[in-house]
């Protein structure tokens, strides 16, 4: 009995102390700590270097809450004015626009916003892109020769590649937004036919882009439809992957370009700190970190990345991201209607 008591007491003390330690956010003394709560749809390890650098530079303490971009956007829509978030970071423009339409953002005042191209930021300055990503094809060079390599995303519905293509599932925000872009660029019927083609051609839908890149590298599939940086990540691991920026010819659509972006929550408690954070994200220092670590391209024309294609070096799909975002719910219905 004595031993049991001792063990339970030890567990209790350690558990309580560690819980208190983890939840303690107050400053012991002196002036009040400047704080910022960020809801981040980016993977925590990939955003941590930027946050650490920001904390060092400004002295503002950041509380980071990570999850998927959709999950956090939905959380913000539920929480509304009760939220404790000050800033929302998303890996998709549509979700930012959706929250802007729900009147959850306050305008960004950072001067650096003017350096971001108009198509990658909100017209009302309610959100801005921070870095760019392209929907691209990756091919396994052991299985696909240079002569037969595809040059369009529509190749994935070509019977020639039946059963040889993989893509991420249709709950992934990048995939949904891409289909939404096709609806805007062409029409519903076009997008519907494309989805039919995907089903008919036996395109394998995997749980995420990582699964796609790994499966293509292993030779399970010849082609994968991913965001371009997944190709770069896989190239680091295996030498048999080539990235294709699709639809680059004159008569083709161009590659669909999406962004990772940020918005400041209207109901947050630290608007000054939030503005400082966005300003930092748009600075050259942060843009470089994004490009070097994540293989995404900087959105500012004067900042160049050495490890991926930069803005202006490929043909983009000419589509308005605001319109794409507005049609998001209809796109989801279209996708669901196909059972995807």
């Amino acid at each position, binding site marked *: 009995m004595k031993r049991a008591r001792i063990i339970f007491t030890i*567990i*209790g003390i350690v558990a309580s102390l560690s819980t208190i330690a983890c939840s303690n956010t107050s400053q012991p003394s002196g002036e009040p700590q400047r704080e910022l709560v960020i809801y981040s749809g980016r993977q925590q*390890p990939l955003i941590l*270097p930027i946050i650490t650098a920001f904390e060092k530079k400004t002295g503002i303490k950041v509380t980071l809450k990570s999850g998927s971009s959709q999950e956090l956007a939905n*959380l913000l829509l539920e929480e509304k004015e009760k939220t404790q978030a000050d800033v929302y970071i998303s890996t998709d423009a549509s979700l930012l626009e959706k929250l802007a339409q729900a009147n959850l953002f306050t305008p960004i005042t950072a001067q650096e916003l003017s350096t971001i191209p108009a198509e990658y930021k909100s017209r009302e300055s309610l959100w801005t892109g921070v870095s760019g990503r392209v929907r691209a094809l990756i091919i396994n060079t052991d299985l696909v020769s240079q002569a037969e390599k595809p040059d369009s995303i529509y190749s994935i519905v070509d019977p020639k590649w039946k059963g040889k293509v993989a893509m991420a599932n249709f*709950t992934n925000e990048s995939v949904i937004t891409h289909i939404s872009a096709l609806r805007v660029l062409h029409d519903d019927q076009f997008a519907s036919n494309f989805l039919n083609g995907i089903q008919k051609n036996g395109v394998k839908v995997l749980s995420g882009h990582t699964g796609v890149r790994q499966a293509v590298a292993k030779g399970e599939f010849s082609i994968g439809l991913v965001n371009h940086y997944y190709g770069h990540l896989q190239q680091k691991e295996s030498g048999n992957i080539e990235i294709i920026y699709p639809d680059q010819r004159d008569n083709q659509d161009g590659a669909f370009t999406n962004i990772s972006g940020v918005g400041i929550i209207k109901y947050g408690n630290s608007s000054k700190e939030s503005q400082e954070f966005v300003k930092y994200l748009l600075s050259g220092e942060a843009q470089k970190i994004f490009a070097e670590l994540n293989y995404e391209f900087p959105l500012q024309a004067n900042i160049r990345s050495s490890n991926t294609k930069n803005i202006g070096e490929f043909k983009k799909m000419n589509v308005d991201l605001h319109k794409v975002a507005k049609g998001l719910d209809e796109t989801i219905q279209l996708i669901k209607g196909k059972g995807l």
Partner: protein
Amino acid sequence: MKQYNLLRGRAYKFGMLPIVSSSIFSVLLLVPLIGSFWYLPAVQAESFAYLRTYYWYPLLLTITLGIAVSFSVLFWASVAIFCFERIQGGIRKILLFFTPLPLIFPPYIGAITYVDIFKSRTMLSVLGGSALMEFLQATFVLSLFLYPYTFLLLFNRMQLINPQQYKILSLHTFTFLEKMRIFYIPHLKYAVFSGMLLAFLYTVADFGAVSILRMNTLTIRIYDEFIARFNKPEASLVTTSFILLFAGVFYLSRHLGRKSMVYKSNEARPLTYTPARSHPIALAGIALLLFLSIGIPLMKILWWCFLYMVDTSPLKAVWLTAKQSLFWVSITSFGIAGLMTLIATGSVFFFLAFTQRKTVLPYIPYTLALILHTLPGIVIVFGITIIQQFFDRTLLSGWLFFLSGYLFRYIGIAFVTIEPVICSISENFTRIGKVFLRSETSFMRTITFPLTKTSVMSSGTYIFFDSIRDLPIPLLLMPLGVEMLSVRIWQTASAGLYIYAAPPMVILLLLSLVPGIIYIRSSL
């Protein structure tokens, strides 16, 4: 002071306490279930059509995978038992320590270590396509890390068999099938069914391993429906179906579990019959099983740790930053699991110690808690989102909400471990205690706790062991601001960054090693 009706020969206390505490417990435990049903009225007619059309495949896959894994688990457990019957001496004791040890590996860690090993272009994938290959891989991996549960059940049951019967069996020249028919099946049938059902439930409720192994089961669909599309009515429909399915399976498993339950009475003697010498094939069989279930995962993790140390890529810089937070993530995991152990075990112990038995009241929360424990974590989290709406958004409420998710999931373990022991306290103790002891508290302190402390300890150990590695609850509740080791591992591995998932894997395995071993030892 309470009055006791000794004249009627029932030394149980009367009063409001059992009613009030049972009611509070029941209402609390009903929250996740009500939450799951909450959005049902909003379900549209099209949703039924949609689910009918497109959910049959995940449903079929989930059930088929569950059945395949339960049979595979039985196979591995039988191999282990079959080999043990042919091993003797010191080596037997050593192997008995190691054979259930794969229990330490959560299935998602097992899946992570194996997914990299599987080669795609095998004969099977050519013959049956990648879907069949993936199914077989998933069955193999899940069964490899779930078999200890069935092994422990079977081994325990076999310990109750009289050694004389083994001797008689060995003296006759029965064929293998005859031995199975007249000896093994009659003795072990309930333990076998119970073990298989356990494996089935674990598989159907699994989230981490199946997602790594690309199995699009129902838990994954709920996750997608809930997280990506935020479609609460349809998610509600699926979770409700899940609850009904699990309630049925739960009833069956309880029924079988009771029949196969092992109470070590005086008549039960440990298995002492061993062969004259260890059979080399039996030794090789166990060695192969241990190599597959412990050797390969460990080698893989250590290899990744080595690669992590020598890594010089730009990502290493990122992970050096992440490493700083890994310490706090580990402390958080330990803290949450420790608190959960104390809260779940303590509350159930006090509840049962002070409430009246032989009435239906305590059995309502008891049954609810057990159903909640069998349900997938993802269903529970969906259920409790309903209370999220009433919370303000402070860090403290986030923590409380986070803990409540765990509590609903793990309180069932405390009930199932402590309740039978408290019930087995003789009525005479109660009567004598009421006469000689001054209060209920002193009765609890001097009689109930000393008699039940072993089961309280095992309950606490298992809750700690299981909650520190749980994945769906911390993953879905991560936006509340609490990160656990399991989430760090799953997210990193899902991004294909295995070498960065290795350090948290090592920490998690170390943290769960001691409670895991204690749990295994107490089960043997």
